[in-house]
């Protein structure tokens, strides 16, 4: 049995807005929520991944009526949640390897189906490295077979567990330990990297969505939508990493919000390969507001500032806004 939630874990963000009807309240504000990943794990203070995983899995637990199995790739989430002999997981949970979470999940789903337990749902989760790089082959296979798995990528834009190295999801100009802020073109190169939500959409799987830890109700809603569908589903969640990004622990939600409000991280949903909804940007901000509060971009703001590079990043944000039509028309 899962341990009953203790109130201090819910935190101020989780407390229900009493003006809302109970049905509209967040999963987190429900003291009876699953508490899939309980307190005491070893994530850094302000870890976006820990926050995102808690909201996502509790929502998935509610949507599945508590009938769920989670498969985890190697990475921060796995390491900080299961330092032997302890575990934060109060749900059936399995870790196998770094690059195989999707395939393991496919196997779990097949076993559940064939043993007549397909009321039990399968969620696989991985960091960006375990998703866009080393795990891409098995993930693409799981998508293409339309296996009944929800795959959640917690994107903190680098290999954090091994000490912040560049991944295929590291954005241009960001410094990591393998794209250091040195030389004529400091930080990660432009013109590289993968856009996994679009790659997922190209598989025409039933559901693809993006979300961030800045809008946790939206994250819960998308998990709930995903869990209402059978087949391969993909959720890409932006989860700032204070350690790797050089942002303040208290700023995790703020950084995520600036990523969306600048247009750098478009938030949308797609059904069967077509974008069906976007989260509009209410108050558009220049990318500089987002970049400035992260030390991984500090080299852009020296004397003189790298205005060309910042403009290049701004152009990416502008393109996202055009592509997904996410700027709300001024009223």
């Amino acid at each position: 049995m899962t341990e009953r939630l203790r109130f201090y874990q819910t935190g101020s963000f989780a407390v229900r807005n009493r003006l809302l009807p109970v049905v509209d309240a967040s999963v987190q504000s429900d003291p009876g929520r699953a508490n899939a990943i309980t307190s005491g794990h070893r994530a850094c203070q302000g870890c976006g991944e820990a926050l995102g995983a808690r909201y996502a899995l509790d929502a998935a637990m509610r949507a599945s009526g508590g009938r769920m199995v989670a498969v985890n790739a190697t990475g921060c989430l796995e390491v900080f949640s299961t330092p032997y002999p302890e575990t934060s997981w109060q749900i059936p949970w399995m870790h196998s390897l770094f690059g195989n979470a999707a395939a393991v999940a496919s196997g779990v789903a097949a076993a559940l189906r064939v043993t007549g337990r397909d009321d039990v749902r399968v969620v696989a989760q991985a960091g960006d490295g375990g998703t866009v790089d080393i795990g891409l082959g098995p993930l693409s296979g799981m998508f293409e077979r339309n296996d009944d798995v929800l795959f959640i990528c917690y994107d903190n834009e680098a290999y954090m567990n091994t000490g912040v190295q560049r991944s295929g999801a590291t954005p241009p100009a960001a410094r990591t330990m393998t794209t250091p802020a040195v030389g004529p073109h400091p930080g990660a190169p432009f013109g590289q990297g993968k856009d996994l939500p679009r790659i997922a959409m190209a598989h025409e799987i039933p559901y693809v969505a993006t979300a961030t830890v800045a809008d946790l109700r939206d994250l819960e809603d998308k998990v709930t939508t995903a869990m209402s569908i059978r087949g391969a589903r993909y959720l890409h969640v932006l989860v700032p990493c204070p350690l790797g990004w050089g942002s303040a622990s208290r700023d995790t939600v703020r950084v995520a919000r600036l990523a969306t409000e600048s247009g750098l991280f478009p938030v949308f949903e797609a059904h069967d390969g077509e974008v069906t909804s976007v989260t509009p940007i209410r108050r558009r901000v220049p990318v500089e507001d987002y970049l400035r509060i992260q030390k991984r971009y500090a080299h852009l703001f020296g004397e003189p500032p790298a205005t060309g590079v910042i403009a290049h990043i701004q152009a990416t944000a502008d393109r996202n806004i055009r592509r997904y039509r996410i700027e709300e028309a001024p009223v």
Partner: protein
Amino acid sequence: MREQIEGSQAVARTVAACRPQVVCAYPISPQTHIVETLSRLVMSQQLGGCEYLNVDSEFAAMSAAIGASAAGARTYTATASQGLLYMVEAVYNASGLGLPIVMTVANRAIGAPINIWNDHSDAMSQRDSGWIQMYAEDNQHAVDLHVMAYRLAEEVSLPVMVCMDGFILTHAVEEVDLPEQTQVDAFLPPFEPRQILDPDDPVSIGAMVGPEAFLEVRYLAHQRQMQALETIPRIAAEFAAATGRQRDGLVTPYRLEDADVAVVALGSVLGTLKDAVDALRVRGVNAGVLGITSFRPFPLAAVRAALGSVGRIVVLEKTLAVGIGGVLSSNIRTAMADTGTPTTTVIAGLGGRPILQASLEQMIVDAHRGRSADLSFLDLNTGLVERELARTRASRRSGPAAENMLRDAMADAVPESGARG
């Protein structure tokens, strides 16, 4: 039921009789006929209650098998050669997690140079992976081993690799007595895992283990294989009772009682070896053969007992540990360390090179006379090798040896065949 049947199909039908619930595989010669047959059995609903997953790689095949097994399904996959290497990380993971997956390895060489033919380099590369490894001598043996493999795997909570020589066995059509479904059902109870991924009893599987307990975890993995040394003969005896087919389980001695020379080997070459021994005994050379069925766990005591009285040992290997020589022979030397029995290694049959009975007879006669080198290569074309060595000496910048030698071999063949003018 006795049938003239291809080895692969016999194995596939036997695996089906074991009622696997999830089969996941990626095609590679010479394993393909096994998984093709299984997919046909699943799709035609002759094998009910089974999912066949067409995965994107061997790494995914073994990973899906891990997930399926951890969720409580009896699981099967098959591979060979490059495919086995491609899944290695998951191979170790499956045994580390104690998942009773059964995998057929249709033994094939490893490239470069790419080669689809038989030797044991693939499975031997996984000798320390924590999997139990059984080697089949013929297709009947392969069939029987698969049924026993599931019993064993699920009893000792370890994955089992059943190794059968690619093409030589997988593609050979011969008479095989396929176990009846009723026999298999009576011998192999349904899979009842100790713990599975289950919302009613949530567990964390595959957690991180640090220096505090890692040694102990590995020690227990070793102990489980040691236990298997006792379990295997018992299961083989039960199998004999169920099917009437006698199986030793660990090793298969042949005419060793009074042998002066013993040849130790694995797999299908044992048949040729026995013919060679029979022929030599007529000529007064007292030779015998020891077939190793269980290579992991390695039956040190059974080997010692079987080889105790022989004067000389030749270990015939279809694999080469580059830089030292034999793999099986170092295991045999460990078993025989106290006896001081002279032991030599012969590497043969790499990449599908035929192992001729005449060559084996000569090898045994040489050993009998105490004339064998510590390490030798059966039927090595020394001319080819010498020419390549000379070329290498002449220039620091030689091309790839394989291509050079193949060209030389072709050139040598021309005058003989007269095929080219």
